[in-house]
């Protein structure tokens, strides 16, 4: 019984953690462009793309 009292909150907490992670991902728009995400892995130079534009201005 003591085991259960300890394990149930742990199980629920882990589940809630997963739920919040999902909420966070939905809120950040990670599921908005599923087809695009699948294609982006083929792009080589993506990490470099984030820096240059600001330097130009």
């Amino acid at each position, binding site marked *: 019984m003591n085991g259960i009292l300890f394990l149930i909150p742990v199980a629920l907490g882990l589940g809630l953690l997963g*739920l919040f992670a999902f909420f966070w991902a939905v809120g950040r728009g990670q599921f908005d462009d599923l087809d*695009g995400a699948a294609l982006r892995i083929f792009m080589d130079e993506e990490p470099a793309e984030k820096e*240059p534009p600001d330097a130009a201005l």
Partner: protein
Amino acid sequence: MNNPAPLPVAGAALAISRFAVPGMRCAGCIAKLENGLAAVPGIAAARVNFTAKQVQISHDPALTAPALLKALAGLGFEASPLGDALAGPDGEARQLVKALAVAGFAAMNIMLLSVSVWSGAGGLTRDLFHWLSALIALPTVAYAGQPFFRSAWNALKAGHTNMDVPISIGVTLATALSLFETITHGAHAYFDSAVMLLFFLLAGRWLDAVMRDRARDGVSALLKHMAAGALVVGDDGQSQWMKAADIRPGMKMLLASGERLAADGVILNGRSHFDQSLITGEAMPVAIGPGGTVLAGTLNTGDAVEVAVTAAGADTSIADIARLMQDAAQGRSRYVRIADRAARLYAPAVHTLALCSFIGWMLAGAGWHEALLIAVAVLIITCPCALGLAVPAAQIVATGALMKAGVLVKDGSALERLAEADAAVFDKTGTLTLGSPEPVDLSMLDATQSGIALALAQCSRHPLSEALRTALTAAGTVPQRVTLVTETPGEGLTGQWHGQVVRLGRPASDDGDMMAAALSIGAAPEFLLRFADPLRPAAAATIAELAHLGLPARILSGDRPEPVAAVAQALGVPGEGGLNPADKLAAIKSLAANGRRVLMVGDGLNDGPALAAGHVSMAPGSAADASQNAADAVFLGSSLAPVATAIRAARATQAVVRQNFALAIGYNIIAVPLAISGLVTPLVAALAMSGSSIIVVANALRLKGSTR
């Protein structure tokens, strides 16, 4: 949207613009767009949404829409600006997926606790597990049940019922009773049933929302924006780009060749050809000179002209058509979905049944507590879990299959109405035909003549010239050296070739019936080049198949009666020409008054009101954006065949929906007597609910091949 915000360019606030770029196809396009745009001065960042075929650009506010379009064109992509009205998903699917996640999480945990109770946990352990279940279930019902509670409340306020009323009552009663059971140390709590019910129903609701978003994204990505604005000349002669909404009557617009008008007006200077097919449906451009009226939405195919604005915004003739469309669409909003029609019979039946079993058990001498438990079991068992999934599951599988076949269906209700159509009305230009002229008999020209024709044709943007250029280039013609080419709107092109005057233009003998151009070289008699607007591939076969499916077709067109009659005769259907948008609307309404359910297929803005008034409507992917918005479905590609495919798939879907209803009713016939006789424990309810849902979804999956 919520993409990570780019770092703002030092101090300046960034403007955000969105463009539909239908041409992106691969990872290379994403990289090219994002990197290429980011390299343009003034653009801070660009983010592609491949699913929606859109790109979002954060840029210096000084950069205007045309400048950004030019940057996109420089990268090789045709793009069109998207207005705020289409700015991203409205978040309904996102809300539902969150509710679904919460319900799923709760259902799993409560089920885990419930299994221990069912396998014999008693006394303190059972009470503890019931309390834990209550702790999870109460917030879940309050959060995940909202879509149903809200919709049920709205329906009740309006004085009718829908599927959500029995759902809301069932879930609320089951939760309340289970809470009471928990407090009084009872044996049976239905928390798992209540939450699982929400989970299954939310799955159905979410599928419905995804289907709508997917089709709308597809449609908005195809949008060809009419005119977002115009170059306005001020009193001081300075010209500046102005949004369509800011243009006022009395202003002077400069309209370049190839631009669409953003407002109605009168030509002040210049003479040009205007493609009015958007408004009138006529394929041939009309020559308009100074003093002539030009309408918003028409395309300037000739020279640059200066236009004085006479009406802008809501006063333009295009806005009139839009209003006509809005009025016509109201009839359609009265359509009641099949699930709600079922609910109108189902909900009272279920409530009566539950009430009767409560009264029956009270009369039979059971305590009110036991009678109430049984009544709630009846409510849970009959709760339209399978019914709630039956329709959306079938419809999303069918729309997925249709999408692969080139038809974007906007929502489930469109699919239902598509299955009911029993008459078809087609527009001619751009719908039955491709909407672009093609030369008929080029073989009679020799190589020199073809070369001269090509040299002249490539100097003009007149549709006939462009058609000639495309056809001759495809035939491998080499252009001759023609110099001093000039274009006179309404007359044609003239030039010099080896000292001779050559001319490509309006034939001297204009029979008016057929599109034609004349080619003359020196003093030799002129050649007549005839053009025709070819029928879409599979047009005749599709019309025949529709007739076979019980949808006799007819043509209603805004084009001149002669070409309409020719097409009608070729396809063997009745046809009427010379109709304005209001005439078409009236024709559709009179068909509807005779009890026909009309499938309207059209592409131009002039078809808009008819598209909105039809029982169901389809538009080709090449259609005007307003027409695509008014239509229930959009078919892609040049072939007309998807129209018949859509009808067949919609009917197959309807058949599966009916089977699913039959399955759900069959399940109720077995389960309800058990519930009334008090044999349904929470365990039985859970098994019955998931069993029937799985059967219904499995049956819906058979529709995957429905478009073959």
